[in-house]
């Protein structure tokens, strides 16, 4: 039997937790040795009669442990970073730094996020000016939490932010009320200092945002700088964090972008790449309205935006524009999707390209408009009368909304079909660095479609006849014959059409054929979207985590945690939800267990079970919030343990 691996540790509760945590990580490794915990008393533990500052020397909590290591009484030790000396004893090395349990350490809460979600020990900045007796009574607090010790678990920084802001703006010609409004800029300045963020971007943003109101602009900048300077000058913060540039970014030019901006830019790009003018019909709705706002700015790209009288009109106008040869788009959220369903069904029936952006939010009904959810998947797939198949795709990150929009346009134009983009509130408002694509790397959409011209398909009779539902044998798309094209005059509508001729038909067999053709056209897109790629680095994983949409970030972080701890798990993420990738069934069957985390009650899981008869495991939380990496890692770990 091999010698056990001995971990030297102090006997304090924190030190023991750390030691046992590392013990657990080691034990999870294949072929791990036995682990023993050896308690070591340090000078800091023994000398409780004297305050630490009165002791001579340093490293009161680590010296004895270092000695034990050097004497090979123990094999390794676990320290809190704060206890480590700046110089490591010769002969010893810092072998590993564990990933942090939870990366979040500040709470800036408007609503929803609770203090209980904040890790203990994190910095808590409170504006004391708001903790008035009146406000405390309003929220039902019997005592002031800043004073009653209830926040003792945190690094509490109680600062009179409002009054400091007002003081900082004393030189400006503005009311106290207006000055108070700049307190968010003071806070931002303080946080920017705390996290060592460059201030130029913020200043530039304020200069642009308030270009027409120079007084407001100057006041905001002054408040921002005052906050920064306050952080720099005072010593209320014991630490300053530096956010290191991410080192895994590919070379290129980057910018920050939100999901809704990326989606808007993707639509403009699709318009440019296809040579079709962009038309947006939209009714304002949270969290989709920003796409309407963004697109309305870009008229010089020939973008036409219409703020419609209702959701139905928004999609109707987009379909009308598509009938006329524009790239027709409508944007909405769940409640609007319900209203648009009938028109989307018409688009399925008349087989015209149409892009429907559903920025999902918590439902049902009005639900929680500012909260995120993935609960519209089944509605996007099936939420219309009749057999009414459409293509459905979902971006996985804010920046990914750009390519998703271009891809949606490609599919819509090539297959003459409605395409639903399922974004959500989390992606829409979330932002991330985006490597700005080279224009040459974007697909040429002109090659994906063409307007019908002339009599391409002579009919059976002597006269050449235009057949508006004679399909392309490859894509099954019907010709897109736009008004203004001589000789191709035709009438189409929501009534069932004869295959080929497109005239009204109630023939039973024709209807069966048309139902199947419409489905086959959507199914056929699977050959055009590439296989689902699985990330399974060591090839030993028995468990696959399969997600779609905005859960990509949290699933990825959870999977990295498992792998860092030595576990094996595979990850795959679906962009295309209709049709599903051709190899999906094969992928699902090649793992012992498939875990499908969704911010709904198992909508993708239902589809997968129905389509592939694979008993996938659902993990569902519908809290209106994204998953947390730690939470998902726990779930994955459990599935692995039972695999």
């Amino acid at each position: 039997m091999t010698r056990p691996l001995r971990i030297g540790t102090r006997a304090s509760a924190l030190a023991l937790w750390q030691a046992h945590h590392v013990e657990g990580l080691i034990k999870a490794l294949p072929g791990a040795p036995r682990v023993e915990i050896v308690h070591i008393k340090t000078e800091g533990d023994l000398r409780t009669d004297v305050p630490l500052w009165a002791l001579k020397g340093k490293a009161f909590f680590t010296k004895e442990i270092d000695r034990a290591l050097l004497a090979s009484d123990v094999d390794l030790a676990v320290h809190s970073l704060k206890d480590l000396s700046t110089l490591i004893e010769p002969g010893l090395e810092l072998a590993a730094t564990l990933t942090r349990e939870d990366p979040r350490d500040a709470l800036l809460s408007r609503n929803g996020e609770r203090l209980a979600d904040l890790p203990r020990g994190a910095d808590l900045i409170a504006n004391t000016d708001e903790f008035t007796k009146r406000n405390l009574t309003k929220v039902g607090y019997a005592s002031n939490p800043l004073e009653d010790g209830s926040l003792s678990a945190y690094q509490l920084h109680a600062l009179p932010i409002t009054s400091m802001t007002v003081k900082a703006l004393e030189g400006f010609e503005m009311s106290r009320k207006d000055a108070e409004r700049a307190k968010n800029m003071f806070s931002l300045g303080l946080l920017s200092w705390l996290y060592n963020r460059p201030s130029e971007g913020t200043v530039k943003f304020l200069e642009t945002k308030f270009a027409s109101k120079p007084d407001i602009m100057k006041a905001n900048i002054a408040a921002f700088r005052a906050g920064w300077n306050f952080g720099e000058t005072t010593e209320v913060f014991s630490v300053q964090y530096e956010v290191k540039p991410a080192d895994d970014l590919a070379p290129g030019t980057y910018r920050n972008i939100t999901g809704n901006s990326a989606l808007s830019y993707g639509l403009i790009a699709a318009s440019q790449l296809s040579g079709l003018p962009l038309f947006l019909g939209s009714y304002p709705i949270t969290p989709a309205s920003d796409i309407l706002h963004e697109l309305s700015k870009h008229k010089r790209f020939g973008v036409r935006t219409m703020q419609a009288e209702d959701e139905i009109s928004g999609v109707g106008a987009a379909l009308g524009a598509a009938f006329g040869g524009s790239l027709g788009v409508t944007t909405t959220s769940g409640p609007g999707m319900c209203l648009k369903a009938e028109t989307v069904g018409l688009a399925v029936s008349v087989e015209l390209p149409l892009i429907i952006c559903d920025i999902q939010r918590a439902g049902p009904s009005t639900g929680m408009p500012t909260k995120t959810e993935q609960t519209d998947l089944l509605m996007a797939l099936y939420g219309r009368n009749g057999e009414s198949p459409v293509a459905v795709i979902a971006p996985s990150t804010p920046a990914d909304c750009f390519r998703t929009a271009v891809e949606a346009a490609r599919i819509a134009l090539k297959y003459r079909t409605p395409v639903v983009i399922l974004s959500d509130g989390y992606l829409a408002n979330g932002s991330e660095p985006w490597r700005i694509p080279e224009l040459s790397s974007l697909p040429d959409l002109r090659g994906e479609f063409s307007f019908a011209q002339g009599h391409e398909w002579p009919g059976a009779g002597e006269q050449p006849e235009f057949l508006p539902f004679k399909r392309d044998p490859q894509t099954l798309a019907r010709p897109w014959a736009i008004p203004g094209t001589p000789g191709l005059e035709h009438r189409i509508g929501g009534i069932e059409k004869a295959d080929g001729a497109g005239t009204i038909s109630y023939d039973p067999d024709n209807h069966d054929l048309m139902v199947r053709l419409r489905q086959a056209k959507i199914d056929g897109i699977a050959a055009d979207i590439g296989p689902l790629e699985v990330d399974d680095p060591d090839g030993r994983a028995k468990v696959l985590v399969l997600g779609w949409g905005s859960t990509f970030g949290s699933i990825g972080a959870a999977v990295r945690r498992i792998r860092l701890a030595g576990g094996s798990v595979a990850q795959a993420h679906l962009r295309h939800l209709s049709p599903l990738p051709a190899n999906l069934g094969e992928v699902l069957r090649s793992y012992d267990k498939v875990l499908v985390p969704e911010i709904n009650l198992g909508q993708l899981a239902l589809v997968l079970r129905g389509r592939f008869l694979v008993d996938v495991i659902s993990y569902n939380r519908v809290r209106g919030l994204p998953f947390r990496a730690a939470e998902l890692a726990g779930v994955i770990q459990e599935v692995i343990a039972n695999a």
Partner: protein
Amino acid sequence: MPEINGSAHEVNGTNGANGVNGANGAGPRPRSLTLVPVTSVKQTTKDFKSDQEVRWCPGCGDYAILAAFQAFLPELQVPRENLVIVSGIGCSSRLPYYVDSYGLHSIHGRAPAIATGLAATRPDLSIWVITGDGDALSIGGNHLIHALRRNVNIKILLFNNRIYVLTKGQYSPTSEQGKVTKSTPFGSLDTPFNPVSLALGAEASFVARTIDSDRKHLTSVLRAAADHKGAALIEIYQNCPIFNDDAFLPVTDPSTRDDRLIRLEHGQPVRFGPAGSRGLRFSRYGSLEDVDATTADESSLLVHDAHAADPSYAFALSRLDTSDFAHSPIGILRSVERPSYDDLMNEQIAVARERQGEGDLAALLAGGDTWHVS
């Protein structure tokens, strides 16, 4: 085929310029069609008949409207491919199938919305919306009023038969109160809409009324609508011989119609009744009253002004029409000039391009605040 490349309005603007004076040497181009190409081909009614069998019930007023419409279309000198008819759901909405042009038979009530998207993007098209009283005023009421208020360059023909027909005879928003139908065996409870009053309240720039059986009048109204840039609403009294026969008898029967119908001609004194003996004048409260024109002070009697800027006058006219047809004004109640939605939208694009230049995709994507990773 027109170029659809994001600058359609410019390309088509050129077409329009060529067509200001009709190629056939006819009169000036109708104002709604200034951006629509002119055909050099001599067209006849037959050119606008499709190969589809017309399937309305025998005796339906829709036949008369279709025939008048098809006979009128050659006047416009619009190439068939630049003519688009959009409809909703209902008997009238089948009309697009019978005209050999581009046609979209859409869904219930949505035709004005769909046509708005088409008109906003394709000013080179002559777009006609065919709808009925249920389609336009009930399920699609919202789209109708907003298309009118926006002044989209579409011509809306509202076939009003005061009944639901495709669903076999329920009362409609224009049915008289107390109407006994399958869904209202004890009589309907709702007060009906007056489509003309509704349109005027919705800021419509062109509102007219005509009758299916009066082809000459119907055609004259179509002509005036085509000459109006912007949204035009034409209410057409249309008889349904199956579910609501003779609904309009008081204004169509030769024995009563002259007492009831008030034929409006811009600039002409308003006269009706036996030998034009009746006239209209304003009451103290702004409504119009029926007076004996032979005895009344001539200067107090109404002379019709379809171009009056204030819609109050047209509204007062429209209120003469009660559901029992005590008086029924027909003709053009209102026709005023106002920029059309599509023109304004295209103008914004043109101005943006003039001031900022054509959009540059690379610059857009790069934005202002970037950093480099090497």
